[in-house]
């Protein structure tokens, strides 16, 4: 497995403020890697180092096997970057601005810009300064994707986009992965990127507190489940469902019309629960999407608690959580 992006013990100090306190990331080629963290956690600083906009205080970073500083122009031509605080100005039209950025990045095929603009629903004939925040963000996404770079570094790419355009953006990310490109993207909320990310790292106060595959997050994530059951007593239902692994907080209430309504949370895959329900007369059922946000917090507090308990970071389960 080759790594498209790797950072080892990366630190960065701005004056007296420590923005990064030893960030380790290993992002495999061809994967979609998300980094989640609150504002000021170091997401943007890490990304800026990859583009050689900011130089690290210590530690190392490599993109496509080269350090950003030494890779220089040749390396940056193979990266598409969307800044977190995208500022685009000028009297020129969107198309003219993209033509300018194309002239200082990798080769852009003529139809690519038009294709991206059409999919995102952006009018390229308007002056850049007249565009709304969301439309400027679209322009930013186009300039990052248009030269089909090997690596995409996207800082808060979905900010300012309406949900429909967010989905189109996620499609673009999927297509990039399918064509072998590596995508490194950030968000302050997991829900915006969980659909496309293979792996996520949680960054807090300049450190990676945990890295996990989204699959594993889904396993530990809790789903809220509800069902309405006919022709059964509360006792029967409780006894029937109590043995299901991962079903917690089961409550069974009887409605005035005799319907039983049961609620609970489910961890892991819902197979056993669904099969057990099948033996009953199910009037209605809902199994919600797992809440990965909570799962992240849970993983985070687990590793945090273990680190705190052991005083070191090498306990087996902490390793598990931070792998």
């Amino acid at each position, binding site marked *: 497995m080759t790594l498209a992006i790797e950072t080892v013990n990366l630190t960065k100090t*701005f004056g007296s403020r420590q923005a990064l306190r030893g960030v380790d990331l290993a992002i495999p080629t061809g994967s979609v890697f998300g980094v989640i963290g609150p504002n000021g956690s170091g997401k943007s600083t890490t990304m*800026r180092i990859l*583009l*050689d*906009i*900011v*130089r690290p205080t210590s530690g190392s970073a490599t993109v496509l096997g080269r350090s950003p500083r030494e890779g*220089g*122009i*040749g390396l*940056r*031509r193979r*990266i598409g*970057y969307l*800044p977190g*605080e*995208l*500022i*685009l*100005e*000028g*009297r*020129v039209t969107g*198309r*003219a601005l*993209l*033509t*300018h*950025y*194309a*002239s*200082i*990045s*990798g*080769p*852009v095929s*003529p*139809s690519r*810009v*038009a294709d991206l603009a059409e999919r995102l629903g952006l009018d*390229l004939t308007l002056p850049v300064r007249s565009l709304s925040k969301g439309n400027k963000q679209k322009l*930013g996404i186009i*300039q990052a994707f248009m030269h089909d770079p090997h690596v995409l570094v996207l800082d808060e790419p979905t900010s300012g986009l309406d949900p429909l355009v967010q989905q189109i953006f996620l499609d673009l990310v999927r297509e990039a992965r399918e064509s072998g490109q590596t995508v490194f993207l950030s968000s302050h909320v997991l829900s915006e990127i969980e659909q496309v990310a293979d792996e996520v790292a949680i960054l807090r106060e300049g450190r990676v507190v945990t890295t996990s595959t989204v699959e594993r997050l889904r396993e530990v994530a809790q789903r809220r489940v509800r069902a309405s059951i006919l022709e059964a007593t509360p006792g029967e239902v409780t006894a029937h469902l109590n043995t299901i692994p991962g079903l917690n907080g089961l409550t069974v209430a009887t409605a005035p019309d005799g319907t039983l309504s049961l609620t609970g949370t489910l961890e892991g895959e819902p197979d056993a629960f669904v099969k057990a329900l099948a033996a009953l007369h199910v009037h209605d059922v809902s199994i919600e999407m797992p809440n990965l946000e909570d799962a992240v917090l849970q993983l985070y507090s687990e590793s945090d608690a273990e680190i705190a308990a052991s005083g070191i970071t090498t306990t087996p389960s902490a390793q598990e959580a931070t792998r």
Partner: protein
Amino acid sequence: MSTTTPASTVLPLLRHAMRESWRSLIGWSIGLVAALSLYLPLFPSIGGDSGIQDLIGNLPPELTAALSYQNIFTGAGYTQSTFFGLMGFVLLSIAGISWGTAAIAGDEERGTLELTLAHGVSRTQVVLERSAAIVLRVAVLGLVTALTILLLNGPGKLELDAGNVFITVLAACGTTLLAAVMAIAVGSITGRRSYALLGGAAVAVLGYAFNALGNQTKDLEWLKNFSPYAWAFRDEPLVNGWSFGIAALYLGVVVLVGVALAAFNRRDVGR
């Protein structure tokens, strides 16, 4: 709907800078032509008017020296005092300093420099191409100035030597560029718009002030050695043509671009 976007164009940042600034270039050109058209045609009525001669004779000698009005009765002295030493200097300096401030510090503080640097350009290239864009713009302003002066030379009875007009414009452009690249250099070091502006303005304002003070007494004449304005004009290029001071201006420009390159390549960029 087709866009043709070649993989790379020659001097992309220079072209972009010119595209973004042609309006301001036209605006400053109009300003210079207007100032010249306002002053130069008046020379026959001032240079030959005994009333004005008496008026200037009655002014405090310090003021006459500060404005170099002692030579105002020759075409060269008049052009120097009213344009190169006053409105022309002010207009050119403001244009140059505002372009120099915008080139690095303004772009950085606005937040747009980061995205440019994330593309396939080096920092050296950014400083050099943007400096070159300013040189080009100042050259256009210089050309407009020189041609306008030559156009008004006959009607205004100024009797200026065409070659010396070009040399004097070259000197004026030198002071403009020195202030402009000072703004670039300070912007490259600090990334702050206000500091860059201050740096550029210091070159122009202190240069002018040192020259004016140096004109007052022999004791203060040494101040002129630190005045780019004096380097350009102390040897009266409209009368005497070329002097080494003009070369010194351009040498200073090269040195300051070097400073800008060294500083900008070393530091973090961002707000």
